[in-house]
């Protein structure tokens, strides 16, 4: 099933705890980040009694003892982990919207001089977020690579022409002097 970044943003908003209103019984938790730092997934595998959270002496011990429903605890941790992963995924997508593909930049590093590529990559980086907004991520990437490929040749040709002219003059001098 295809899902847009906008839909993902709505599903996983950055400044909202998705479980606070859905699971009122876990309101004693501070933030998902805090609990995930205190716990590891292995601690809560079903049937693994030796990994009771109180054994690690973390700050949620009291809360855990108050709420003896182990199934809900497992569910909560899994939900939080999933939420964390999805939010990180959304974050990656958001940063991908702003940064052009590195492979394209590398191509410019291979073929162009330092000054040329710095200015050119700067221009392409500046243009890129606007293209994503206008055409979407995939088409923006296609346009970016088209720009990269079609930009390399005119600039490389300029250098080739210059050096072949030098070569021609050098050859002329060699013939005259010999």
């Amino acid at each position, binding site marked *: 099933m295809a899902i847009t970044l906008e839909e993902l943003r709505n599903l996983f908003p950055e400044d909202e705890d998705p479980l606070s209103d859905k699971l009122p019984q876990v309101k004693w938790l501070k933030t998902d980040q805090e609990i995930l730092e205190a716990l590891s997934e292995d601690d809560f595998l079903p049937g693994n009694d030796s990994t009771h959270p109180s054994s690690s002496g973390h700050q949620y011990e009291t809360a855990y003892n108050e709420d003896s429903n182990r199934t809900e605890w497992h569910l909560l941790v899994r939900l939080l982990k999933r939420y964390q992963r999805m939010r990180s995924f959304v974050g990656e997508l958001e940063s991908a919207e702003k940064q052009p593909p590195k492979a394209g930049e590398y191509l410019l590093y291979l073929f162009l001089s330092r000054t040329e590529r710095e200015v050119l990559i*700067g221009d*392409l980086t500046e243009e890129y977020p606007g293209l994503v907004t206008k055409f979407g991520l995939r088409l923006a990437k296609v346009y970016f690579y088209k720009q990269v490929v079609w930009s390399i040749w*005119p600039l490389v040709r300029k250098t080739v022409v210059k050096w072949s002219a030098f070569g021609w003059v050098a050859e002329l001098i060699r013939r005259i002097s010999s």
Partner: protein
Amino acid sequence: MDKQKKELLGELEEIVLLALLKLGSESYGVPIHETVEEATERFISIGSIYATLDRLERNGFVSSRMGAATNERGGRAKKYFKVEGAGMMALEEAEQIRRSIVPKLRLQPAGGKA
């Protein structure tokens, strides 16, 4: 007629010079590229624009300077361009050449009434 051999402007060179005149102090890669693409309604790579600007600079038609690095460009600097006197003269000359061949150019659409 002046017998001295003069450098004639190419099509893209002329358009880029006109874009620089239009943009004024904001003449750097991105707006130049946008202006040229909008005017020509064709795909033109930024590399072609820079190759053209480099040629114009070597002929003394434009000058360039490096600007400050900005965050939106990933910490990279802009390169600003400015039309020099020789560039203005080259544009005027291109216009004169056109007028000397056809003083008042009025094109009629094919099959249209005169």
